[in-house]
């Protein structure tokens, strides 16, 4: 199953084969398309099953291998007027393992809310199911949310059922020199609000008449698209974003969210000892010999 993308007719069989490959001993690392840093160096590498098993437009769900490229999922869903609220590039599994949302998080919500069900391969080499196939489910503990952002340290995603959303019907970007918090108050559920310390970019979606009315009320100016995003990623309470000094290193902040795309690396975080201990215990329960993605510390800055 390694190497070439394999379109699977039965993801169950593919998950079993993936589990076989992961095995139950010795260090092992997983990679997709390598767009988010790739595998842990000098460790045996595996790749997750790839391919779309099914799309159910009326359920707004899709089932696919974790190794499926997001571009492939986007293209297939677009035929049904739908998409997934995941950060683009690379594979579904890679996007979920990192857990970062895209710049539409203000309107679309975080990546962690997209996963309904996951099969993952545990450190013991078993295929484990987390969650359930329906859009609403509170049966048991929420292992799906534990896996999103866990960077492959608790299990390797084999396949997932994701919640989809309607494709935007008429997205348009605008700019404004108004205070970004004023815009957050004035606009109705913008999909995105980006601020570089001077200018705010607003992404609106919906009926053309509604957008026109919003533009008029808020005094927006049409533009081609969002600004280029600096390389580094900070996370801060949204109320503190305004404190980023203008004139310092360039940044683009997601207003109302608190993700800041910054030209300088994020300051080191202070991790509470209790949180650290809880992480250690979870890792120990799920991967007692620390064989999955060895050396990756989810509490360290990525």
């Amino acid at each position, binding site marked *: 199953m390694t190497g070439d993308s394999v379109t699977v007719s039965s993801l169950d069989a593919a998950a079993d084969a993936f589990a076989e490959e992961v095995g139950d001993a010795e260090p092992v690392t997983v990679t997709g398309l390598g767009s988010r840093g790739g595998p842990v160096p000098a460790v045996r590498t595996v790749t997750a099953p790839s391919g779309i098993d099914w799309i159910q437009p009326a359920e707004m769900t899709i089932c696919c291998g974790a190794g499926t490229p997001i571009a492939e999922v986007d293209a297939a869903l677009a035929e*049904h007027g739908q998409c997934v609220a995941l950060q683009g590039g690379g594979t579904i599994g890679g996007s979920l393992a990192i857990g970062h949302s895209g710049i539409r998080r203000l309107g679309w919500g975080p990546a962690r809310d997209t996963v309904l069900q996951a099969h993952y391969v545990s450190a013991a080499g078993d295929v484990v199911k987390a969650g359930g*196939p329906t859009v609403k489910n509170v049966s048991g503990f929420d292992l799906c949310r*534990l896996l999103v952002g866990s960077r492959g340290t608790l299990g390797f995603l084999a396949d997932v059922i994701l919640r989809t959303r309607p494709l935007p019907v008429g997205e348009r970007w605008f700019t404004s020199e108004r205070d970004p918090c004023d815009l957050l108050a004035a606009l109705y*559920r913008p999909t995105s609000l980006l601020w570089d310390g001077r200018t705010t970019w607003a992404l609106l979606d919906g009926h053309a008449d509604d957008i026109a009315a919003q533009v008029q009320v808020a005094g927006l100016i049409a533009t081609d698209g969002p600004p280029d995003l600096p390389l580094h990623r900070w996370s801060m309470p949204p109320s503190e974003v305004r404190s980023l000094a203008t004139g310092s290193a360039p940044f683009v902040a997601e207003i109302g969210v608190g993700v800041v795309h910054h030209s300088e690396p994020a300051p080191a975080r202070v*991790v509470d000892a209790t949180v650290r201990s809880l992480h250690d215990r979870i890792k120990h329960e799920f991967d007692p010999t620390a064989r999955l993605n060895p050396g990756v510390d989810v509490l360290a800055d990525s």
Partner: protein
Amino acid sequence: MTTPLVARLRERLRPDQVRDGAAEVNLYRRDASNLSGHPAVVCFAETVDDVRAIVQVANEFGVPFVPRGSGTGLAGGAVPTSGSIVISTSKMNRIVSVDHVNRLAWVEPGVLNLDLSKQIAHLGVHFAPDPSSQQTCSIGGNVANNSGGPHCLADGVTSAHIHGLEVVLPDGSVTLLGGEEPEPAGYDLRGVFVGSEGMFGVATKVCVKLMQNSPDVATMLLDFGDVADGAQLVSDIIADGIVPAAVEMMDQLCLQAVEEFIHAGLPVDQAAALLIEVVGLPASVASQVERIRELASERHVGTIRVAADDAERALLWKGRKSAFGAIARIKPNYYLHDTVVPRHRLPEVLAQVYEIAARHELLVLNVFHAGDGNLHPLLVYDAREPGISERVHAAGDEIVRVSVAAGGVLSGEHGIGLEKRDLMPLMFSEIDLAAQADLRRAFDPQRLSNPDKVLPSPAGCGDIHSVPAGAWV
């Protein structure tokens, strides 16, 4: 006689916060399910320090504790383990802070769901999850159960509305899970705590997301001669790219019961009605209403009533939310189920629900969140009738099984608790359940926080941990 446990709790708290009189303790034996237990003592926490003190005493004595909000849960999640300490958070009911610019608030767990939205209404925002019990259920209980509600279709259930949690972990340590920042380092411990049914500790402060109120809203009531047509329309709407704020269904028996109760002019001669609400900006709302009309006409809709004003809208919603009061006019007892099926399987599963009820000679009313396939069959009966409890039990069990067999799940919003604990193997293998137990052990190695819920007991524990007699599935 005061037990050493109670004496110790009274040392750590004010004596009046610790109640062990039989009459008072008996008030905390149950939640809104039909299950009950026997706690040793009830403590009324007022601060995070109180909660920590109680949990520390629980650890000292090796006694389990059971966090409790308003006790409105329907799955036995707050039913106390024998000899346990009930920690009531109902007195922790302050709204601590509101950031109306970034639309978030810190609240204590005992704040009631509807009170929160009322208190912040003047800021043009609300807390989206709206369980039917929202007048009495608490935010802490919503967190424990990952509660839903009619308006969770478009905006998601509780987990999507919680940014962070201050918690007392089962070993008595206090920490913050998640927080105001969008991407806290490490695992999503906030996400796993939500819906953990009190088994990962006690939430003492909750950072909630507040949603912007909608500038425009349309509330529609559509009726159908055939339940299947209404159910099919739900799928048609979603497949068309419209995600309404709410899509609720009531069947004929329910419509009749509610109409007799509130006189809202409901279509009592029809097989079913859909209550659909679309929200947003005016042009978007108008175009969605128009499109829903078109789709409905292809599914043989009877009449389409669009609420003309807020008063009519309130009346239609009162109809939906009065269902449980109305059924008391039919029979004195009811058992409310909660399963989810894929939307496109609704017509066939509903048909099976009617068949199951008929075979057991039971009345069933259906009033449910059709938009997300969340069924709520209400079996109504008179418990004084000999043998009927067994029939209700058997029918309920079959309803859960047909839902799961149709690709559904055990619970959409009520949780597993004690009620469905022993049905978990219908959805999960032993390996799947072991992974959930691993997560539980990481949070609570001593098994003190609300033990014996959610996860079926491992083989060998025998009757000690079995679901109590009288428990229904």
